[in-house]
């Protein structure tokens, strides 16, 4: 990649510091302890994240059942098949539905709870923080199993109660009903990772200088005005990062879907990760081949799709910044 094209990409992505390799080397030498401490994690990420991603590109060109070495070369056929597969686009739709419903609801709840927990008059805020964060440290698969059991047994009791009360005409199998399966997964997803975003918002709120609130108070601002005129603007930068991380995280949903619904019934809650899983690991009882090559192609296809959307979003944000600057 030429220096000019690197500069163009950096400009598009919003890097304001000029590209200077010698400056970078100087920084590394000056702060070598920081880089040294980062090195083990970088090695692990490289070995267990980057390397598999790069290695799987080769696999996408083969029909391969995961046994031995890939030998049946098919070229780009898998990518064309993925692009034409209605079930794949159905999974993409559900994945984005999951993210677009979960993120606003969860972040709103997380911010609201963070505001409450940030109140110095609240007693026992540490206990509440631990309570809200505890689902985060619970395995998603375990959460899925427990919730499935609850919905299948107690959920059925609730359903029968609704029938007896005349609210519905027939019982609802919450996880086995296509109208509710994805919604149930989204609901559990909101609860499961709420604690992450709560803690991020709490940290961000605590970094807002108290003097700003004092000044707003002196100016006669009420609670809502302080929230909209002080809190929200001060949270904007951190909030953008939180939103970005929440979206990225929710696009990767897998355990909850697999354990709670398996992507069913009939693909009504299938997301891209379970779509990939179903092709990579066919059921043991069915005599058809797994196709790790096809599954890898679907994963790469989705990865490129998400990268494309992310790049478009970055360009759009950059453009919006520039327009605002021009207006000012």
């Amino acid at each position, binding site marked *: 990649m030429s220096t000019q094209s690197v500069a163009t990409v950096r400009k598009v992505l919003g890097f304001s510091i000029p590209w200077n390799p010698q400056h970078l080397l100087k920084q590394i030498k000056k702060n070598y302890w920081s880089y040294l401490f980062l090195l083990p994690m970088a090695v692990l990420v490289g070995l267990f994240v980057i390397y598999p991603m790069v290695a799987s590109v080769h696999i996408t060109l083969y*029909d391969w*059942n*995961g*046994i*031995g070495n890939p030998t*049946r070369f098919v070229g780009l056929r898998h990518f064309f098949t993925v692009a034409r597969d209605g*079930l794949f686009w159905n999974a993409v739709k559900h994945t984005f539905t999951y993210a677009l419903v979960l993120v606003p609801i969860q972040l709103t709840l997380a911010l609201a709870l963070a505001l409450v927990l940030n109140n110095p008059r609240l007693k026992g805020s540490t206990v509440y923080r631990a309570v809200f964060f505890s689902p985060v440290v619970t395995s998603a698969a375990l959460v899925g199993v427990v919730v*499935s*059991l609850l*919905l*299948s*047994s107690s*959920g*059925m009791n609730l*359903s029968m109660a609704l029938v007896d009360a005349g609210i519905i005409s*027939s*019982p*609802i*199998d*919450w*996880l*086995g*009903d*296509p109208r509710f399966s994805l919604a149930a997964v989204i609901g559990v997803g909101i609860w499961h990772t709420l604690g992450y975003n709560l803690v991020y918002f709490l940290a961000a709120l605590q970094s807002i200088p108290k003097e700003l609130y004092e000044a707003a108070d002196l100016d006669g601002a009420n609670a809502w005005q302080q929230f909209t005129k002080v809190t929200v603007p001060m949270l904007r930068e951190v909030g953008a990062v939180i939103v970005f991380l929440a979206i990225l995280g929710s696009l990767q949903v897998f355990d909850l879907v697999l354990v709670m619904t*398996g992507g*069913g*019934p*009939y*693909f*009504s809650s299938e997301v891209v990760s379970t779509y990939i899983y*179903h*092709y990579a*690991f*066919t*059921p*043991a*009882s*069915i*005599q*058809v*081949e*797994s*196709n790790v090559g*096809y599954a890898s192609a679907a994963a790469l296809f989705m990865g490129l799709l998400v990268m494309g959307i992310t790049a478009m979003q970055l360009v759009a944000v950059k453009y919006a910044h520039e327009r605002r600057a021009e207006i000012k």
Partner: protein
Amino acid sequence: MGVSLLVVGAILLSSCSFLGVGANTAGSNGDTVAIEYWDWWVTQGPTIDKEIQLFEQVHPNIKIKKTTQVVDRYPELLQLAIKGNTAPDVFLVPEKPTFIEQVKQGWLLPLNKWATKDWQAQFPPYAFAEGSNVIDGKIYTVPYEGPGPWLQLYINTKVFKDAGLVDAGGNALIPKTWDDVRTFAAKVTKASGGKVYGFGFGDKQKTILPWQLMMVQNSGAPGGNSGLDAREGKYTWASNPVYLDWIQFFMGMKQDGSIIPNAMSMDDEMARAAFADGKFAMLIGGVWNQTGWAQTHPGFKDYAVAQLPYEGPEQASYFYQSPGGTGWAISSQTKHPEEAWLWFEWLNSKEAAVRWVKDGQGLRIYPEANKLEYATTPQFKQFMQIAQTDIRLGPAPNLEHPEMNEVKMRQTLPDIQNILEGIYSGQISDWKGALQDLEARQNAELQQAIKETQARGINVDPKWWVVPDWDITKDYKK
């Protein structure tokens, strides 16, 4: 500094042995050997544990370390272990990849050194078959299971009696046909005021709806829930009307309100527990249900076993058995082949087979182990009696033409499990269209797989899939 390093080194080494690193080697006295053993059996677990105990009494220098893996992921777990050179010494042979593929990949140890003619002679003549468990004269495994239908209909007789479904002698009625099942199911649901259902299943794991479809097996669809009819050498989901008939019957039961409402969200084990708790009256499952209930519901004895109902008025086909089959195998990576063979031989012995049958775990390959008097419960006796009548010998063209095993079909979705889900959940309204689409796709995939195999230089003939002279009501004789 030197002493510190020595101390650290000693701590690390002793930690390694604590963590099991370097396990499966001779112990400190050089005699004790640990044999790693894998299966996927849960309800059969206590019987295997007893065999381990008995074996270790006879062979005190050999310790069997059993691991029970999740059945759904067993093939992948085994494959990973083999790739990581940590394969168990003795394991149940998975259904995937194919046995021939496992041999090609070098997973299995040939047993001819120990499997002498005398040892082989104790098995019935149909136990060993070239292409099934023997490749080029090398024996790799032997079937443990005896011939019998792998699914039966279980009836909660107390629920039936409470609903008045009894004969003149006060015994619970046994449904023979689909109409019987639907009628009895409706009666149970109505008699209980909707508190108890007539039929149930648990499809959370997305493999159980095809078990319900297996009611076509005795109804003129010899391919059962595979859809592949060897008489035509192709998939017949739509061209054999039995499949659509079954869907209409099953959805009729659903519309009657006879099927437990949370069937799609509970798994098979929950369904078995619900059945034993009297929440519904009829369940399709295998003989493993019986030992399962003995463990989870020891007091539950009010159930009967019947063969799968047929469309009627007469049974039109059966379950089919072919020569050969797989069971346990010894890993080619084993460091203790002699000890592994001893455990393998023990598991496959007649004595162990008799104990297996007496424990109600199922039938074994030795006919002499499957005596009715060995049944310790009336229900297991019922299963044994069904096995005597509901099985026929079927054709096995892949034994005659082992090249057929080189034909590898890719998955094409939606498959029958997906389609049944879609129909049951109301998302598919054109049932016949869905079956036609599945038939067309799978037949196209089969032809494509055959063409690709031929392109790889392997001589396969599409005609080998067709057995036109097969009378599905009789034992197949070539």
